[in-house]
């Protein structure tokens, strides 16, 4: 237990300190959302209608950014070997790494989303719905990303490949995240139906992600 807590605290500390780049994702999120009105025009009614989709897309892309450092940094400095050899199950170590990663890169996106909702002319209900779906859905993105990061850890050009591998797997999360946000705004489906499925996707990826990532690391680094 202390080992897991130590991994968690170490990853938290590394990402908030100088060079960790925890807030670059939020900055990227802000830029993506700002670019949208330039591309589709400052039509406030249209922006309000597609706002949830823009926020979800921005969050999805921003969560991809930090993935290539999630495991590769530990691989380069050798601490991944220690984690692999430790008596703590690799699955749990990876899960605590993913948790720390989500708290430092996913949660800031969720907190930033209501502010960006103002730029997109979202009303308070819509803003709340998007923030809630992001809170429930971004952990799934991190756990799916964990698989991609583990598969590409020892590759020289892993960063691009992660996006190609992870984005198709993230399609259901995106569909149900946007569906739940839209259900809260315009209906006709009640908000709870897609939202509970989104939560189910998150719980499922929290199980599948660490196991698949651990399998990829064990088989890939021997």
């Amino acid at each position, binding site marked *: 237990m202390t080992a897991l807590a130590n991994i968690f605290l170490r990853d938290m500390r590394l990402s908030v300190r100088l060079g960790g780049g925890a807030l670059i994702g939020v900055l990227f999120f802000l830029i993506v959302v700002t670019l949208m009105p330039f591309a589709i025009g400052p039509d406030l009614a249209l922006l309000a209608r597609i706002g949830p989709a823009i926020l979800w897309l921005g969050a999805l892309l921003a969560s991809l950014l930090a993935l290539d450092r999630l495991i590769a940094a530990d691989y380069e400095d050798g601490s991944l070997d220690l984690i692999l050899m430790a008596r703590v199950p690799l699955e749990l170590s990876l899960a605590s790494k993913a948790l720390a990663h989500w708290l430092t890169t996913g949660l800031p996106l969720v907190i930033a989303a209501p502010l960006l909702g103002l730029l997109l002319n979202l009303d308070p209900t819509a803003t709340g719905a998007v923030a809630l779906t992001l809170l429930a859905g971004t952990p799934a993105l991190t756990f799916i990303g964990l698989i991609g990061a583990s598969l590409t850890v020892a590759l020289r050009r892993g960063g691009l490949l992660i996006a190609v591998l992870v984005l198709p*797997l993230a399609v259901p999360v995106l569909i149900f995240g946007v569906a739940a946000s839209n259900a809260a705004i315009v209906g006709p489906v009640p908000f709870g139906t897609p939202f509970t499925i989104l939560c189910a996707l998150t719980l499922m990826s929290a199980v599948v992600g660490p196991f698949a990532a651990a*399998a990829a690391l064990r088989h890939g680094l021997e």
Partner: protein
Amino acid sequence: MPLIDLANPTRFLTLASRALPWLTIATLAAFAVGIGLIASAPDDYQQGATVKIMFIHVPAAWLAMGCWSVMSIAALGTLVWRHPLADVAGKAAAPLGAAFTAMCLITGMLWGRPMWGTYWVWDGRLTSVLVLFLMYLGVLALWRTVEDPARAGRAAAVLTLVGAINLPIIKFSVDWWATLHQPASVLRLGGPAIHASLLTPLLVMALAFLLLFLTLHLAAMRNEIMRRRIRAMLVREAESAAQ
């Protein structure tokens, strides 16, 4: 013959080279019969001659999903049973699956233009097949990026199994969208909804496509074993030259 006997690549190569000519002949014969049946099949009363696109589209769609199943079984063979030929089978199936998926998408688009009035709609069925295509390309990209074949095989196996969980979810999630593509009409409760004059050529074509897949898969596996032998020889040569 138990599957473990095929673990010896040399024995597998012997078997493959014995089976390939017969499979090729059977494939050509099935295609000849199938195309003959298609030529004599009646046009649909609504769709006219475009209904004949279905005879390629539907078998390609079945194989697009079938190839991922083959890859998933091969992935289990790699990770669980450590069967030496499992990752060869998985690697050989991936480009075939991508090609069948592309064929399914392209024929569907050609049919959709006159029938639906558009090449593409963001319908549930179409979208999930497109995501399947992207996932095939992801597996191919992973195979091409990792240099060592054994390591690439294990990475691709993990990705294939995660994809196998993900595909039904995508299928289910996009069905929430309004759909234009017709539901299943051959494999359904209460028997096929297609008239026998169209169903017979369809099933013959499905058999022909299946034989085509088996032939190409066996040939691709044989090529992959040869390619690995050449690679091993080159590595050995480079090592002896360096000393």
